[in-house]
Each structure stands twice: as C-alpha cells, then as structure tokens.
C-alpha cells in the first residue's frame, strides 16, 4: 500500500487530487452532516445545563421518550421473532410464490412512511376496511398499538433483509451434518442455525430499534399525536417546535441523537466482536 503510494509520488510528483479531494469532501460534509448535528448540542447547552435538564424532565418529554422506547422495543421483538421465521421459511423451502412473498415483505422499504401511515388508517381506522367492524372500545388507531403497528410496517423489511441474507449465505452443510447426526429440525435450529445468526439478530434488532425510535411520517398519522398519551419523541420535537418552545424540542432531540450515535457506533465497532464470540 505505502509502497504503491510512494511509487506513484515518484512517477507523478505532487498529487493534487489528495489534498483537494479530501478538502472538498470535508467541506461538503461540514454543512450537510456535521454542523446540523453539532448545532443541536451547541444550542442545547447554550442556555446552561440546568435549563436543558429542566426541559428534558418535563413530564410530556419523559413520556414521549418512554413511549418511543417501549413501542420500538415491541416492534423490535416482533421483527426478530417473525423476521427469523420468515427468513427461515423463505430460505429453506422452495415453493410457488416464494419470490412474490420476498418482494412483498421488502416492499415497505420503498413506500413513503406517510403513505404507510395513511394506508394503515384506511385499513384500521374507525371507518376503515377492517376497522369499521371493530367495536368502539377495541379500536387500535390513535393508541400506542397503532404506533407499534406502524413501526413494524416500516421496519420489518430491515430486520428481515439482514436475517435473510445471512440465512442464504450460510453453509447448508452445517444443518445437513446436524440432521445426519440425528438432530430434529428444532435441535438443529437451536444448536446450529441460531448460533450462526447471533450477529445478524443483534444487527437486525438494532437497525429496527434505531429506525423505529425515530419514526415520524407514519406515527404522526396513526398515533393521534396526543401529548402524554400517544406522542412519541419525534412527534414531541415537532409539536414543541411548532409551539415555539425550541428549547423543549431541542432537549429531546439531543437525547434521540445521542441514542442513535450509540446504536450506530455499536453496529459499526462491536459487530465483529459479536460475530467472533
């Protein structure tokens, strides 16, 4: 590597592509990514940590963060369990319509989240295709269940995609060996397949969680956006900003941003470690 680089220098002399190219990339990144993120933190601490803390400790803010975490958690559990099931069935069996199912499952990635939320409303809403047959007290739209439903709709393809790709590239002879040794399907799955999927499960879960906790487009339609009842953290940020309470919005934004950093760093740095374990 270094030999190749120095050889290039020898041939061409000073290479302007490196400093200029690098400078351009950094100049682009600065206003696009780094400065906006930095501004949250700069603004959040500009009027002192005390007021930041007070804004964060407002009951509605805490509720919104909690609601986001809880709904994202249930969506994650659902995605991992059913993502595993779907990926297992779709990678281990061949049947008519297999590709159609895979495409359908992956479709929500391409659908705008606002459309997804709207579609859920049309189906489950009080006057929706199914919702109209559901009694008043069992309506799920504008409840936390609607948020979970929207989260699952939007994030399931992420978990499924990660798990499916690992299932498909897995060495099938491991499972075959286990079967010839005398293991039942379940024993093979538990002792052989699942351990190989550990990294993919963690990745799929974290991706789901990170995506779900920031979900805005679909939740704003299906949740009702009631402060202290169905308002998630991103909705809280939006609402407070609309009300002109920038400090309140910013406090929650800082927490969400830190949270995303944590998950992202974990995915980036700790995955190899989990895989190797």
């Amino acid at each position, binding site marked *: 590597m270094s030999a190749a680089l120095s050889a290039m220098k020898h041939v061409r002399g000073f290479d302007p592509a490196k400093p200029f190219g690098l400078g351009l990339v950094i100049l682009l990144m600065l206003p696009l990514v780094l400065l906006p993120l930095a501004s949250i933190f700069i603004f959040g601490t500009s009027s002192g940590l005390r007021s930041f803390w007070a804004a964060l400790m407002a009951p509605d803010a805490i509720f919104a963060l909690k609601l986001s975490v809880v709904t994202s958690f249930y969506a994650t559990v659902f995605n991992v369990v059913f993502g595993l099931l779907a990926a297992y069935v779709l990678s281990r069996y061949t049947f008519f319509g297999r590709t159609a199912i895979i495409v359908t499952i992956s479709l929500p990635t391409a659908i705008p989240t606002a459309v997804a939320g709207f579609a859920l409303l049309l189906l489950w809403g009080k006057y929706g295709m199914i919702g109209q047959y559901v009694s008043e007290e069992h309506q799920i739209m504008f409840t936390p269940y609607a948020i979970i439903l929207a989260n699952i709709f939007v994030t399931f393809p992420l978990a499924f995609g990660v798990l499916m790709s690992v299932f498909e590239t897995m060495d099938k002879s491991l499972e075959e060996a286990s079967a*010839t*040794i005398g293991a039942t399907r379940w*024993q093979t799955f538990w*002792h052989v397949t699942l*351990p190989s999927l550990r990294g993919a499960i963690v990745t799929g879960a974290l991706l789901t969680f990170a995506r779900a906790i920031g979900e805005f487009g679909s939740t704003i339609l299906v949740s009702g956006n009631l402060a202290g009842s169905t308002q998630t953290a991103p909705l809280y940020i939006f609402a407070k900003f609309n009300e002109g309470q920038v400090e309140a919005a910013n406090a929650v934004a800082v927490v969400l941003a830190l949270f995303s950093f944590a998950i992202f760093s974990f995915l980036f740095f700790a995955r190899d470690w989990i895989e190797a374990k």
Partner: protein
Amino acid sequence: MLPEKLPEDSDTARAASPPAAASVSGLSKSFKGVRVLEDVSFDVGEGEALVLLGASGSGKTTILRIIAGLELPDAGRVFIHGRDVTDTPARERGVGIIFQSYALFPRMTVEENVGYGLRIRGRPRRERREKVESLLELVHLTDQRKKLPSQLSGGQQQRVAIARTLAYEPQMLLFDEPFGALDAQIRVRLRREIRALLRDINVPALFITHDQEEALELGDRIAVLHAGHLEQIGTPEEVYNRPETEYVATFLGAANLLLGVVAPGRRVELGAVALEAGAEAARFREGQSVKLVFRPEDVRVSKSGELPADCNPLANGVVEEKHFVGAYERLSVRLDLVARAPRPGEPPLYEISEAPERRLGVPVIVTRAKPEAAATPLRVGERVTLCLASFRVLPNFPLASERGGRVH
C-alpha cells in the same frame, strides 16, 4: 489373457462376496429436467470400503446425498442393513457423513462437536464425557479438545468430523471428497490413517472422489461413474487391469487405444498387423469394430526382435520421444500400422500428415521401469519391436450406456 494373472491379494479375497451392509437399486434422479443419475445399483459389503469414482458432474455426490437422506431419488430404493430407508428422514438413518468442508460447528469446541450426537440424544453427562474421551484418543486429538475448529489444521478438522460421526455409532460412513481440501503430502498420509481407522472400527464406508490414485488406494472396491451411469464396479485390480469400457480404461490410469477389427482365428486386425487375441477376441463376432486397450507399462520393447514367450507380438515401431519421469521412463513409439495401401475407395485408417516418413503410423505410449530402461537403453529414432504382456479388447463404444439397449 488377464483373468488367470489376477494377483491373489488379500484385498481381493476380502471383497469377494461380503453380505450387503447397504445397497442402492435403480437410483434415478433429475434436477430441473437434467438427468444426473440413471438406474444406478450397487452394494456395499459389511466392513467394506467402496469408492465412487467419477469426474465432476458424474452424479457421485448425488448418490451420497441420497444414501444419507439429504436428497430424495426420483426412482429406486436405498437399503441399510436390509431395511428400506428410502423414505426415512436423514436423522433416523444412522448414517455419518464427513463433508468435504467437514461442516464442523464453528462455535463449538472440539469436544462439544464430538459430543453433539450424544447431547441431542439426551445421554447422561458422564457417558458423554467418557465416550468423547475415548473418541478423541482414537483420532489423536486429546490435546486439542478445548480448541475451536477454526484453530485446527485441515487434517485435524477432518478427524474431528470423523469422531463426531463415530460418537453415535453410525451404520455406515460416507466421505464426500474427503481429501479435496488438503495438500498432496498430507492427503497421502491421511488416507492411510483413515484406511487403518476403518479397519479398526469395521464400519462400512463409501468414499467419493475424482482422484484415481486415491480410489485405488482407499477402496476394497471401486465403482466408476460417468454422467449418472455406473460404468464398472470391482476390486481395484479388476477395474484397473480388466476395464470393461473405454471410459474406465482411460479414466483410471493411462491407456493406449487402437482401433481394430475382429478377424478370423481370434485375431484383432489393426491396420497392417494382426494380434493373437485369444479369449479376448472370442467375445466378439468377426468383423466387429473393436478397440485394443493396453496400459503403457504392459508394453515390452525389444531392439533385437526377440520377445518374451508370454508376450503377444504387436508391431514394429520407431522410438519418437523419450522422457525421464522420475520413477520410470516414458517412450512414445510410432507403430508401423498403416504401411498397407488402402484399397480403392477405402478411407485411410489414420490421417497422414505432410511429413509422411515420420508421421506414418500410430503413436503409443510405453513406460519402462528403471532397471529395464538401464539394461536396454533406447535412443530416439531407433527401431524396436513391441509386444503386449496384457491387453483388453473392448467394443468400439466409450461408455457402458452406449452398448446395451440403453442408447440415448
């Protein structure tokens, strides 16, 4: 010619007619409309090692997977110890596979891998520990017990794979290209080790390989497969010395092939010369087109024209090339077979190129062991007389499938 000369080796005697430990009959299989197996039947005797030998795409892996229960045949049955297991799931067959990749469980240690079969059968911890202990001793891996498969060499991984299957006392062992992933020197050592191990544990084994040397060394018997057909099955001596088809003759070792016609008096006419073929020729009707097949090492060369008594004179020729190949010397001798002028309208037997004085005739390959090469040294350009110590006369079809009614 040859049957009387078959050496009475212990291997031959052992494989004479053992009771079948496993057998397949009439196996056929297609994948997406492509026939990969066509009516394949054979037995594996008790304690016998059978090698399925074939090029890639010959269907040998499919046979192994069908026996293991990982693939269903379109037609045919699989029997293990007399029990029809064709519809039995893999896990109830009690067959052990050693995969080419070994398929060791990457997150289990060596002893966990070996103990897996007992663990899923819910055997008590003590019994498991003792069994694993003795198996690790058997395959000389006691020191490596706590390691993960990725920390072992290829040969060690293979021994773990073998121990892992032996733990549940399989009724049969299947080896899928067991030495394919190893380098040449280790390969030779390992197959001797496995051969010795199999003798100890007396479990019937089926090997799959495309390596003829491996097949000859590992197998009590060899089954040669080509394009889903069983070409020939027999002891290594039978298959090597008495190939039944041209494909078998050329796939297992080197062979010279000369096109000929059966002539009166049990002779085979090869262009200008006729060879006394005895019983070999008696199997064909007169005028039938045949191929004379002989191994390079079965050719005797004489400068004086004096030939050994038990050697069938073939023809004269000119030494054209001479190579020293280590253990033996390889000669290319051009036989004077087409000195005869073709009859009017008859196509020439062989293409004659632009340099007739040199290119006339057919080249054959002759190998001579060191002592013989040293006793009568030969130079390029010298004229010699050739005779055959043994040979086969085969129908002029390369494959078994083209002979009978099963022509495609």
